[in-house]
């Protein structure tokens, strides 16, 4: 009996010793910039995650992994686009890898979940993709270590609403993914569109990652002039296909992710003529973007999406800050300050930051066309820029104070006055 006990105790002890060995913290090398990158590598958003990592790594490779003397240690964690997992991975990156900053996450909900972690642990967080409005609006004061390098969900929607009025649309039906990002994109559009005389007459909310739109498409009201869609991930492929199959003849417009380049090459010709708004288009005809697209495509075999561009640009911004500090990590507070004062020329165009540390940037209205671009010899689908709104901030044409007085856009705000 005792011998057995001793044997067991020894086994237990060796197990624990093994665990401790795994848990030994690593030595911290000088002049090393440790970057924790959180992106989905598995699950429905894996392709988006791949684009994000590719974009970031393309820049670090261009810089030969050397940001003004600091060598980059890039640590990637897969969060499967599930907020609880994102939080745990962030804790791992901060506590075990002692990263200087966190980058990434995909969903708006991921952004909202990671933001308090950054505040609690006093670690810089750069949401390159999560566009949740309030991170840099009403709750901005709670998150002093956030610099958003992407966009707010409703940022492209404000000019897009005006554009829709200019097209003469009077009544629009929205079909959008039912989560914060969808609510905010639609909310911004509704506000701008109704302020210039349009009417949103119906809002349909399929859950995130819906594949079958059979239950939703037939309910779209027939007296609408156009349909606004907001799809993310694999939804973007399914909705236009099923809408076309159902015999839709109405013009279709959409939030940026509905026609983003991560999905566009896999889409059919039914999306030709669809219009969307975003701060980036791979078809943006500037020398800087042309060079970016060609290099990216050569390297990864596909056209960069906004997910690639925003992370490429994020890496560029970090590099710029490190240039100013001479390759030394300046501390979280100073880093945030330096980064928020940057004015940069990026593949998406000129970018600067507002007082809430959200980018001020161009918003492009883009139309899907089948054509040749950048000297490629095949006809392909491209998001041709048809109108540019320059230097758009997150509040659009609205005054900051007036804007912040209203609640954050949600499923019920703005209320659907013209829905029956």
């Amino acid at each position, binding site marked *: 009996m005792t011998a057995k006990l001793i044997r*067991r105790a020894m086994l237990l002890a060796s197990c624990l010793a093994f665990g401790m060995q795994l848990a030994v*913290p690593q030595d911290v090398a000088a002049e090393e910039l440790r970057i924790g990158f959180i992106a989905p590598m598995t699950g429905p958003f894996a392709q988006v995650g791949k684009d994000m990592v590719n974009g970031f790594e393309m820049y670090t490779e261009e810089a030969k992994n050397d940001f003004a003397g600091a060598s980059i240690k890039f640590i990637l*964690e897969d969060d499967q686009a599930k907020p609880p997992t994102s*939080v745990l991975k962030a804790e*791992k990156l901060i506590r075990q890898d002692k990263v200087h900053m966190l980058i990434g996450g995909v969903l708006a909900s991921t952004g909202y*979940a990671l*933001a308090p972690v950054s505040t*609690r642990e006093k670690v810089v967080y750069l949401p390159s993709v999560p566009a949740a409005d309030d991170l840099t609006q009403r709750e901005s004061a709670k998150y002093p270590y956030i610099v958003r390098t992407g966009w707010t969900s409703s940022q492209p929607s404000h000019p897009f609403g005006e554009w829709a009025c200019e097209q003469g649309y009077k009544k629009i039906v929205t079909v959008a993914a039912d*989560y914060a990002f969808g609510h905010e994109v639609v909310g911004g559009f509704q506000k701008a569109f109704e302020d210039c005389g349009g009417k949103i007459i119906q809002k349909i909310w399929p859950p*995130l990652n819906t594949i079958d739109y059979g239950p939703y498409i037939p309910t779209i009201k027939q007296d609408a002039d156009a349909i606004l869609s907001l799809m993310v991930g694999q939804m973007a492929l399914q909705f236009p296909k099923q809408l076309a199959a159902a015999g839709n003849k109405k013009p279709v417009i959409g939030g940026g992710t509905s026609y983003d380049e991560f999905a566009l090459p896999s889409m059919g010709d039914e999306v030709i003529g669809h219009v969307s708004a975003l701060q980036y288009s791979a078809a943006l005809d500037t020398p800087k973007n042309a060079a970016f697209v060609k290099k990216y495509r050569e390297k990864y075999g596909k056209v960069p999406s906004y997910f690639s561009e925003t992370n490429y640009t994020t890496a560029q911004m970090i590099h710029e800050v490190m240039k100013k500090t001479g390759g030394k990590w300046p501390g979280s507070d100073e880093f945030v300050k330096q980064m928020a004062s940057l004015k940069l020329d990026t593949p998406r165009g000129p970018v600067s930051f507002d007082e809430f540390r959200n980018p001020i940037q161009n918003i492009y209205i883009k139309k899907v066309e089948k054509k040749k671009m950048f000297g490629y010899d095949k006809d392909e689908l491209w998001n041709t820029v048809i109108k540019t709104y320059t230097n758009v901030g997150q509040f659009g044409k609205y005054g900051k104070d007036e804007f912040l007085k209203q609640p954050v856009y949600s499923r019920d705000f703005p209320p659907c006055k013209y829905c029956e």
Partner: protein
Amino acid sequence: MTGRSKVLIVAAALVALAAVIPHTNSFVILLVTRALVLAILAMSLDLLLGFTGLPSLGQAAYLGVGAYLTAILATKYQFGLGLDFWLVVVLGIALGAATAAFFGLFAIRAGGVYFLMITLALGQCVWGLAYRWNSLTGGDNGLNLPGRPEFGIKLADDITYFYLVLGFFVASLLSLYVLVRSPFGRSLEGIREREVRMRILGYNTSLHKYIAFVIAGGFGGLAGVLWAHANGHVSPEDVVLTTSVDALLMVVLGGSGTLVGGAIGAGVVLFLREYLSTLVPWWQYVLGGVYVLIILYLPGGLMSIPARLRQWLTPAARPKQELGLRATAEA
């Protein structure tokens, strides 16, 4: 091996855990804390699966109501951030039990696969509420807790919180252990083996199953309260079907009908998923492989390893054992 030496081993392991963990790195502390919370959930499920023979696929629901209760009270009413944390613990257990008492009205009528299906459906109802009731639950965004409670001792400190969770874990283990060894616990095992016979013996088996279901819900609610503060964030992702399935796998992996097995299973699953995933990209294959191997070769779970080893080392004992097994199967 006697029951007493088993108790001693478990006690020694817990003491070792309490002594060693604070000296590991802070991420490991976080992981172990979470594993202990999930261990409470797994043990609550083991009461149903292992002792009563009710495979529930909705255990995440009780974790969910406990966690959301904690988060909603903390964010909307600033309640439960001081000494009133203990009240929240009581409320969490009560709400978990009350939810189970309500769900049990539907679930207990069914058996076997139907029980599995109905608990799954009921669990999804809780997920649906969490996901769609934006004004209360924050919808898909979930809720961020303002911080851990502070009442003389600061739970914000991860080691303190680890000890608190360990305390709750030990208390849960002890009370469940006493419960399953009580005459009531024996009656549950009787129901698992042969419900008709128990009914003939004069037991109100539905009532016994119902009570077990409610108790399991209470422990689920407790796990929820601790889970909310462990993460600082509550999301509908916590309540999804996967969490229920995970709990079931933890129990099966560790060995159902052993209580401690669920805890070991929780540790193994969490370690493989959250730690291994930071080391290698193919961790999912490892996890899948472990599940398949254990179900194929260790149907009794990890807890059956010692018995298996003994059997293997002393072949003479084998026929007797098998005879014994057959006898129970025929009963």
